[in-house]
């Protein structure tokens, strides 16, 4: 490792979505020379740039009246953070020790001496998409089961596919996939959508989208590619098989907080506890922002806003510590 283990950084930021990169822009401009550990590439939302890397058009981020592509927005965030001197590391944090100061952070498979030592830490690890938890889902990932509609929708031209879920991301995926697919069936376990009105209305009005209400997925069929989906009606208990050739899952998110169990206080649902209107966590000097501590708003703009809060909180706290 080329890291200077002896060097104590003022601020280390873990995570590189809108929250982490905004915290980097602010702490870099405050001359705190932040190090941002951005994570490692993956095809899930747990990756550098975060959940927006898997979206297409972002229509509600202020300042872009014509909309902007999610990955382009995150590239711009990253460039802005680098412009003011943020050091960005493409590594994944594997362990933290917040039991004493300065805080210690390990990346990859390393053990022994910590890779980073920091006076203040900003946690912005976000949330990742939930999967159904079926054996067949893992086996058929990349063979008709997909975690990224924007990446893989193209391969389902003129096919009848399904989206599981009833929230905004499920509606967004269904609408996007309807550009390619002959038909998109939304499988939802309730009889009404959880999605916002604008997203629900758009999906309902789309002639290529139909709904299977009160339904849960029991199994995905096929050996080497998706050949069908087994579904149970939650009201009648009746089971049926549908010949979908693709399955996209959008059933919600879970926070990326496994790293912090036993280190920081978590809510029962796994999200980090922050105090009042601040970004402070249960450990003095550790701050949290973005979806990792927000199970309510979960927007790019609120994540960015809370990233700014965490940066200012960290800066002021470091001042009180004489740094």
């Amino acid at each position, binding site marked *: 490792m080329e890291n200077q283990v002896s060097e104590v950084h003022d601020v280390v930021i873990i995570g590189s979505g809108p929250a982490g990169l905004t915290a980097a822009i602010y702490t870099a401009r405050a001359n705190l020379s932040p190090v941002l550990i951005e994570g490692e590439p993956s095809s899930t939302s747990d990756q550098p740039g975060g959940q927006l890397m898997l979206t297409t058009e972002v229509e509600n981020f202020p300042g872009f009246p014509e909309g902007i*592509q999610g990955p382009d927005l995150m590239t711009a965030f990253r460039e802005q953070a680098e412009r003011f001197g943020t050091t960005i590391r493409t590594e994944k944090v594997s362990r933290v020790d917040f039991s004493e100061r300065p805080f210690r952070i390990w990346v990859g498979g390393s053990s022994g001496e910590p890779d980073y030592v920091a006076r203040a830490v900003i946690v912005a690890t976000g949330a990742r998409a939930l999967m159904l938890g079926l054996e067949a889902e893992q086996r058929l990932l990349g063979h008709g089961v997909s975690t*990224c509609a924007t990446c893989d929708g193209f391969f389902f031209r003129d096919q009848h596919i399904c989206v599981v879920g009833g929230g905004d991301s499920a509606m967004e995926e269904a609408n996007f996939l309807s550009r390619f697919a002959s038909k998109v069936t939304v499988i939802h376990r309730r009889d009404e959508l959880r999605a916002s009105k604008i997203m629900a209305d758009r999906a309902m009005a789309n002639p290529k989208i139909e709904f299977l209400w009160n339904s849960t997925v029991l199994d995905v069929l096929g050996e080497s*590619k998706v050949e069908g989906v087994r579904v149970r009606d939650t009201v009648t208990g009746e089971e049926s098989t549908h010949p979908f050739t693709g399955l996209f899952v959008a059933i919600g998110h879970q926070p990326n907080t496994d790293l912090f169990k036993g280190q920081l206080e978590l809510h029962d649902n796994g999200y980090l506890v922050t105090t009042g209107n601040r970004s402070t966590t249960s450990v003095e000097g550790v701050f949290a922002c973005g979806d990792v501590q927000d199970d309510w708003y979960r927007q790019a703009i609120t994540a960015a806003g809370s990233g700014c809060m965490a940066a200012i909180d960290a800066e002021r706290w470091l001042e009180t510590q004489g740094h």
Partner: protein
Amino acid sequence: MAQLTELTADTFSETVNGAQEAVVVDFWAEWCGPCKKIAPILEEIADEHQGKLRVTKLDVEAHPSVAQQYGVMAIPTLIVFKDGQEVVRVTGSKGKAQLLDDFAPVL
């Protein structure tokens, strides 16, 4: 850093079959966020393993027939060929250490 050779439906076979070294083909597209993250890692790997590994890319939107031929239904997908035979397939974006593990059979 090395620019990856861009393959087409026409040059695909001759590149994959004719090379002395193993050939990595990165199936990608412009609209795929995770593909953009894996590209610089592949360029690094290409630099570090010159002579053993030739790293190329194929735009699935421009050349869908090749993607179809190899049953690619998700991107990024990386297929490693040795003497024209598929020896390793990686579906989805990954970090450098993991990719080097996956490529180990040809390194």
